[in-house]
């Protein structure tokens, strides 16, 4: 997961990936799109390749890159595994606090603030 996140942490590499979502592209096209000089772009493409996010093939003297959707999907699953439990915990904590406030309010006839009073 770390390598994949590292790879997408850079805005230029994300720009490249966005372009590749539309299909195979040459290194030159990717460099232009990311606003990079070719040697710099090559280094970034190397990071994406090492993370398994892109694959490359030779076409004459051009190098054509495409996205590896399996790796992208795996990265997505890893991110989900991180965020989903936290979001569930947020939902539970908020809903529990609303219930507690409702109980307190009805028992002692007071409320803790305008937002909770409406609940």
């Amino acid at each position, binding site marked *: 997961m770390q390598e994949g996140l590292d790879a997408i942490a850079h805005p230029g590499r994300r720009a490249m990936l*966005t372009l590749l979502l539309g299909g195979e592209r040459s290194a030159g096209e990717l460099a232009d799109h990311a606003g990079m000089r070719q040697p710099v772009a090559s280094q970034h493409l190397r990071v994406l390749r090492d993370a398994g996010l892109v694959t490359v093939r030779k076409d004459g003297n051009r190098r054509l890159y495409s996205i590896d959707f399996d790796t992208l999907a795996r990265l*997505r699953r890893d991110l989900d595994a991180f965020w989903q439990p936290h979001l569930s915990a*947020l*939902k539970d*904590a908020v809903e*529990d606090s*609303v219930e507690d406030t409702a109980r307190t309010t009805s028992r002692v006839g007071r409320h803790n603030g305008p937002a909770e009073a*409406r*609940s």
Partner: protein
Amino acid sequence: MRIVRYEILIHAPAQTVYHHLTDPVALLTWIAASAESEPIAGGRIRWTLPNGATMHGRYLDLQPPRRLVFSYGWEDDLMGVPPESTLVEIDLRTHPTARCSP
């Protein structure tokens, strides 16, 4: 480029959700073992999870109780996302079937 987007339905007023997202004590009830939060533009946000991983960032946009944006990342280079290297945007919208507002 937006990398991921999540949506959840919470049965509570937006103000209560906003409070849980920004109040240092309320953060302890769902994500953090210890938390600092200064919910003003440029203010610091820092959570340490129960596993010891520490996230920190800064609030960039706050429109209580509807929207908060903060930069985000992990100390000690965890998960390859250094502090303030990425952005979290949270929008709280009232569900169309909500019985009360906001």
